[in-house]
């Protein structure tokens, strides 16, 4: 199976190390001729060092010993797809295609973009709207163009089941919303990640309920931010609701197709049922970034006080709702802002 030579050298190195480091311990390892070892199919016995000396199993490990025998691992990657499935190349193609839509169709305007940090992790939390939400790409595009740093959009895992769409979404920076994924992105990698705590309840609400924030899940996003030790940055988006308003939902069809919801939109009436799924109305999108919310708790804990989490989530939701109302008060036209 494996070539003998490197293993032999490894072994002798280890023994030298043992002899050098542990003195009598090294000798112990050598006087083992009366111990029998064996196994099924193969195996061994470096035997009993731990039983005789009463140590925990680990001191035998080459702890803190520089590994001279591990050459740099050759990693012959051919694509730039990262562990999240994101490809910067595809992402830049997507940005080039989406750019004109962002500038000329939605005429996206930002306010308070400077509140988003240029380095380090932060959890972006926004309201979610439009049958097929137009807010996520607008937020991701804007931040990536202006700040030059990637944004990972957390979405319902339902996406991953859809052929082509799921793969494209993942290559374009979408990540399945899982607490472990969020923690790794925010804490370990210091990335920006965008979540919509309303989940599918946001985009599936009908036009009559526009700009009324749904329940913010179970406050999981607050817990993730606490655990990762990053601020939550609420983002209020106005305009996405009108870009694809839902008239009603066909729940039976959604069940048959195993979709979270099946909307019938004004766009369907205007452009037909196929084109209407991709053609947005040219509503003016305005995005306002609120002040970052930080939590005065120790990061890295397994659990946090549920009441504290729910309070903070409700607090953020209320602030976002107030901001939406302010923005709507100031808005004079759906189409021109």
């Amino acid at each position: 199976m494996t070539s003998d030579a490197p293993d032999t050298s490894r072994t002798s190195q280890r023994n030298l190390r043992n002899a050098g480091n542990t003195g009598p311990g090294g000798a112990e390892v050598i006087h083992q001729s009366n111990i029998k070892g064996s196994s099924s199919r193969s195996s061994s016995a470096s035997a009993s060092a731990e039983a005789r000396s009463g140590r925990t199993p680990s001191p035998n490990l080459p702890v803190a010993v520089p590994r001279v025998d591990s050459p740099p691992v050759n990693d012959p990657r051919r694509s730039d797809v990262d562990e999240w499935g994101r490809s910067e190349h595809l992402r830049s193609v997507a940005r080039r295609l989406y750019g004109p839509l962002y500038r000329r169709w939605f005429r996206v305007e930002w306010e308070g973009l400077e509140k988003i940090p240029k380095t380090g992790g932060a959890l972006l939390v926004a309201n979610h709207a439009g049958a097929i939400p137009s807010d996520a790409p607008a937020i991701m595009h804007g931040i990536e163009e202006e700040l030059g740093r990637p944004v990972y959009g957390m979405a319902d895992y339902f996406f991953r089941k859809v052929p082509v769409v799921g793969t494209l979404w993942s290559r374009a920076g979408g990540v399945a919303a899982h607490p472990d994924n969020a923690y790794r992105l925010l804490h370990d990698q210091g990335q920006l990640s965008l979540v919509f705590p309303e989940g599918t309840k946001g985009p599936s609400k009908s036009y009559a309920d526009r700009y009324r924030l749904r329940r913010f899940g179970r406050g999981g996003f607050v817990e993730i931010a606490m655990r990762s030790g990053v601020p939550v940055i609420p983002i209020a988006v106005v305009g996405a609701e009108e870009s694809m308003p839902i008239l009603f939902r066909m729940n039976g069809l959604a069940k048959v197709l195993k979709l979270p919801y099946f909307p019938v939109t004004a766009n369907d009436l205007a452009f037909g049922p196929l084109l209407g799924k991709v053609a947005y109305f040219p509503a003016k999108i305005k995005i306002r970034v609120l002040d970052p919310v930080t939590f005065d708790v120790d990061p890295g804990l397994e659990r946090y006080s549920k009441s504290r989490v729910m309070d903070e989530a409700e607090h953020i939701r209320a602030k976002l709702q107030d901001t939406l109302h302010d923005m709507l008060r100031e808005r004079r036209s759906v189409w021109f802002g």
Partner: protein
Amino acid sequence: MAQALEADPNVEMILGLGTDEPKVPLERTEFVRADQTYSILNRIVRATQVDTIVHTFLKTNSVGISSRVLHEINVIGTLNLLAAAGAPGTSVRQVVVKSSTHVYGASEKDPTWFREETGRNAPVRTRLERSLIEVEALVRDFIMDNPQFVVSVLRFAHVLGTDIETPITADLRRRLLPCIAGFDPLVQFVEEDDVVRALEHVTRHRIPGIFNVAGAGKLPWSEVASIAGAFLFPLPPINPRSFARPFRLLGLIQFPVEMESLLRFGRGVDTSRLIETGFAYRYSSAGAVESLAQANNLRRAVGDNQPTYRYEQDVEQFFQHSPAVVRGVDG
């Protein structure tokens, strides 16, 4: 594995147990043929007073094997093995089990990286996964009943290498890699040398616990094909198994049932726990693919390496076992 252990002078005796003859030259290992459920193991353990059992015999793919045989080998085999190890007055103090990352399944709800304690999301649909999960449950019970044992469970990602035959290595050798149209999952591999080294590492250092073993990084399935110079063979997203059936019967591709969800959602495991114990991988996931691709290229150019060791092995057998050899003179 046995070769790696033979190189260690501290190991006094190695005993192999399996249903087939070993395929590599072994100098010091004694080999015993056994049936697939290890029913003989109890007697062997008592007779030889071994102190470590490395259980590498679990089936981790379901190609060409009936579900009954799979159950016999994986579940009953492990049951007998653990029973032998835990028998009263046993000399065994360490058990190492080679499992698979198939125990995590693959589903859309999965995290990008599974840690050892992360639960599984996908429903257990295939008999292979069911048997592996049952095996791990047996091992867990064993640990609870016998806390004095050093028990290590290594969950290996898909193993690549020239000496091992898995559905993926077979597909890569034929340069035709099945995929599900519209999906390009991220997958992880581990090179067979790293498999052996990981087993050796936990055995030698007596490290208890459950460990994921996989090369660093994940790569898209399409990139696997491109590194290996293979063509992708797209199957329809709806019912790919029945579409693939004629091609499987013709032997063009292998597409066992446990691959289906993998080819949709992929799988990644976090290997930091094993690395923290001092283990260093020689191959990344992509490196494992490339190394196999190069070996396959060589094989295509010069044909299969003829086994050249038979003669030495026979001589060795003669020295070890023949009554004609005068013991104690030379070594």
